[in-house]
């Protein structure tokens, strides 16, 4: 299985190094850099906006455009952190103050350069882990039955709730809302219409892409318009050779680079948590183990190196569970899974047997995108001032019209626009009140899988709950799930007494 033969590699190579695919990669890279660099436009939003366009492409360029755009956007999010003290995407928020403090000290070039250099290294590290881990994990997953899948989904949902920042209770509410959305329609084990109110559009279930355009793009536009009075004031930074001194930094902080990449990949691979949480964790870890923790926050490069590598490695890590189990590692891959199904690249352990050339082509795109980040990133840093001068009052409405057409295009139905609007408002209200979005998205994507595997396991086991623990891997996963739920409860109880 997953036999990586020379033929497969040659086929994958031919799929990637096709002029059309290369053009798509270049265009997506520029799009990703712009979206990442403008505060208020995020990497997830870039993905949601790309889906209606990729809808009409063959599988490899469609996936390639998402991979490239997100990698570029997560790096480019560092640019306004340094220049405006505003994160370009939430993944840069952890070290925005630090980067801006460096710029204020006259070291803007260093901050921008390390954002780029360590993004590239982190991204390549995550890609290496993805290429090594996914096929071998798939080999194990081939033996999984509905019991194992049930526990995997429960574990995934649990990690989305517990890794979300803020109140875990609000995370649970968000998750349940997502599961509720997933249960609309005929697509359930009994084939019984639920919550359809006799409406034909609802009987087919709620289409996820317009919902995601609503929750990630429309809600973000609303937030930007609400903050339109906030001026963007650009700090002065002299920009010469941004890669100057990067080799010295790599030699001085190898441990930070490695730790950031490892933590980032792992957080990315855990369902529901992506680049933004990876960056927060890596920044905190960096400070905790630093020899000079007092320098953090005053314009110190160490944390930027670790967290900057971390958020880019998380991107690739998130693809591991997405490809092998169909369980998204972050919000971006939650959208990607839908695209994979549309393109006939159904995620699951057999993907490495049935679609080996396409999957290895995707791996190559990951490497290519991270290498391409170096020259394009330098160009983006030089063009930063022009990009950040893009007038918001023009940009936001145009993006909104694009969202409308994109939501319409998925089913050629105005109902898509209705869904987009409704979930745009829901997403905005949720985030403003501290309810994280990621658990809801995970619930929507995994709801059907959760119910299906639970019901078919129950039928197989004839209603005996204990059967969920009888197979060795299922038993281990089940016990792990119970521990994950029990630890915070026990801690809370002991803390009170």
């Amino acid at each position: 299985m997953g036999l990586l033969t020379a033929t497969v590699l040659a086929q994958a190579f031919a799929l990637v190094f096709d002029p059309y695919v290369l053009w798509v990669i270049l265009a997506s890279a520029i799009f990703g850099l712009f979206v990442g660099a403008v505060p208020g436009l995020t990497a997830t939003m870039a993905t949601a906006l790309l889906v209606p366009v990729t809808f009409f492409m063959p599988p490899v360029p469609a996936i390639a455009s998402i991979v490239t755009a997100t990698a570029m956007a997560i790096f480019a999010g560092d640019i306004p952190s340094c220049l405006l003290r505003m994160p370009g995407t939430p993944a840069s928020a952890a070290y925005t103050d630090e980067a801006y403090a460096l710029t204020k000290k006259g070291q803007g070039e260093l901050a921008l350069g390390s954002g780029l250099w360590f993004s590239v290294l982190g991204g390549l590290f995550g890609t290496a882990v993805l290429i090594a881990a996914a096929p071998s994990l798939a080999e194990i997953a081939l033996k999984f039955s509905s019991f194992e899948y049930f526990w995997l989904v429960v574990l995934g949902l649990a990690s989305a709730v517990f890794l979300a920042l803020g109140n875990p209770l609000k995370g649970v509410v968000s998750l349940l809302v997502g599961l509720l959305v997933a249960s609309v329609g005929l697509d359930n084990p009994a084939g019984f219409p639920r919550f359809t109110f006799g409406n034909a559009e609802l009987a087919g279930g709620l289409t996820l892409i317009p919902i995601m355009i609503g929750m990630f793009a429309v809600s973000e536009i609303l937030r930007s318009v609400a903050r339109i009075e906030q001026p963007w004031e650009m700090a002065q930074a002299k920009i010469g050779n941004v890669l100057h001194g990067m080799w010295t930094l790599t030699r001085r902080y190898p441990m930070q680079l490695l730790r950031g990449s490892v933590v980032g990949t792992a957080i990315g691979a855990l369902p529901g948590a992506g680049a933004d949480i990876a960056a927060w964790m890596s920044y905190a870890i960096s400070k905790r183990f630093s020899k000079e923790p007092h320098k953090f926050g005053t314009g110190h490069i160490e944390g930027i190196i670790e967290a900057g590598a971390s958020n880019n490695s998380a991107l690739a890590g998130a693809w591991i569970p997405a490809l092998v189990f169909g369980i998204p590692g972050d919000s971006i891959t939650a959208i990607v899974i839908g695209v994979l199904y549309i393109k006939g690249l159904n995620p699951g352990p057999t993907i490495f047997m049935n679609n080996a050339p396409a999957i290895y082509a995707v791996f190559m795109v990951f490497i290519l995108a991270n290498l391409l980040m170096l020259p394009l990133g330098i160009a983006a840093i030089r063009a930063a001032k022009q990009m950040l001068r893009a007038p918001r009052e023009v940009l936001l409405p145009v993006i909104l019209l694009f969202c409308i057409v994109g939501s319409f295009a998925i089913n050629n139905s105005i109902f898509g626009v209705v869904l987009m609007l409704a979930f745009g408002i829901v997403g905005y209200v949720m985030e403003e009140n501290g309810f994280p979005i990621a658990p809801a998205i995970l619930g929507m994507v995994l709801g059907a899988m959760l119910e299906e595997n639970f019901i078919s396991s129950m039928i197989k086991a004839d209603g005996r709950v204990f059967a969920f623990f009888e197979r060795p891997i299922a038993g281990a996963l089940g016990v792990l799930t119970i521990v994950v739920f029990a630890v915070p409860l026990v801690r809370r109880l002991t803390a009170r007494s």
Partner: protein
Amino acid sequence: MPGQKFGPAWFPGVIAGGLAICGALLIAAGTRERAPWIAPPEWIHSPRARVGVAALLAGLVLYVLAADAVGFHITGIVLLAVWIRLLGASWRVTLPVALIATLVIHFCFYKLLRVPLPWGVLERWAF
């Protein structure tokens, strides 16, 4: 479905139960902190932001209601013009951007991607 323990109602039932419990706990926590039931967001004090948010939402509702009858092109140009102008751009910027952006979207989606955007009243002049 009667006689079936894990029928189609079981899963939504569990979700509803969970939401009820979480809702009760959140209300309890809010009461303990004496938090207000509803608090207006900060941007409500800025007229430009207030008008902008209201215009975006109203415009989206209008699109849903009018797009099929009036057509994508007219609705798109009008909405863009109103939105961009209300957010503070001058007419000299607003009108060309509204026109060109709508035409670019028309070209990308209708021509290249073959999305059947409705023509509405312009049906006779469709191109």
